[in-house]
């Protein structure tokens, strides 16, 4: 099952819809840089996120085509 940290990262990236650094993600969701890095790497292996080192920073982004246009999302109850 997806850990709560991975879920937090994915939810955050879905909401933001723009590339972020690991540091920015960590600050926003209240998790350490190292924890974000570990989880993002695992998510990138599952092709749910992309990660690339640009200069001194690791940039994380989510492909727009990763959106589930159909599937079960239409049935989700509002929170």
């Amino acid at each position, binding site marked *: *099952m997806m850990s709560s940290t991975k879920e937090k990262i994915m939810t955050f990236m879905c909401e933001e819809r723009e590339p972020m650094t690991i540091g920015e993600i960590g600050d926003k969701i209240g998790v350490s840089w190292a924890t974000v890095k570990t989880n993002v790497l695992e998510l990138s292996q599952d092709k749910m996120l992309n990660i690339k080192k640009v200069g001194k920073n690791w940039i994380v982004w989510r492909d727009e085509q990763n959106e589930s246009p*159909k599937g079960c999302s239409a049935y989700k109850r509002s929170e």
Partner: protein
Amino acid sequence: MIPKGNIYDLEAEVIYKDLCCYCGACGAFCKEYICYECEKPTTTEKCYELHGACYDFCPRTFFPILELDKKIFGAVREDKALGCYKEIVTAKAKDSEIGEKSQDGGIVTALLTFALDKNVIDSAVVSKTSESETWTPEAIVATSKDEILSGAGSKYTLSPTLMGVREAFDGGYKNVALVGVPCQIQAMTNIQNSKNFDVGGDRVNLKIGLMCTESFDREALIAKLSENKVKLEDVTKFDISKGKFYAYTKNGEVTIPIKEMKSCMREGCRVCFDFAAEFGDISVGSIGSESGWSTVIVRTEAAKKLMDDAKKAGVIEVKEMSDDAVEPLRKLATRKKTENLGNILGKIDEVRLLNLAVSGEDLKTLLI
């Protein structure tokens, strides 16, 4: 806390562990990503949902049995073997056509046709034998007596029946009956009570559960019949009665002790805790009734009304069942629970009970 997961969690926790009961709940509301091959769900393309309905609806990821007792029946079961109910009776259809084509008393077919006739339902999801593959059940949305009759009779192999519910919803039906074995009824109950997804499951207003000890793997069943010199395509009817499995052909019947049939059992059935379709409005079987009659467990107010109305209309004949007659039913349900609870405990990882950390097997030693 309700666990959340997606299709990959479902694969890891249920499908690859051979716990899948092939009910169709995961694919019913996700035709885009899930299809069925070799009696198992499979993904057609990558799904990016973090929390999917497939995981939420599956009766093998999470089924809060006692919480659902309280929610649906207003109290936790007093009868641990059979679940909550109002009464247990023995009944049969009065219509001779239904009696001839159906299993036992034909009560499922009689109730469905009566409910359709009285506009209690506008369609019924039933399983009929596939025209392309002998004795392979497939879900259909029946809207006439003939279509309901085409689904009569026990099959003993499974189909993703919940896909039929989706089909009924897509067809615009608003009062749908579902006929299914306990795992399929559990799946529908999960769908109706999901806190995270709303597919309009309340449109299923009548759940008729079929009592079930186990279902068979189709290939294993073909092999077992072959051992007994019977071809599947020659079989006209299957039945289980008094510890024996019967395959009727034009040339006579073949009897196989039910113990020998255990080798054909679907792996997913070995962890099923439900014999009596405990979350149906009505559960129907044969144990405890005379030949040609069905044992009927009436669980909800709506089911009681339907039974009473059908009796008053002369559609069915109903007799009370004595405690002695119910006892074999209770015994069989208890045996399934005991055997399969052992299998469940054998599959779980370490459990923490406050300060006690024990493996599933040790828990069995401690509690049973």
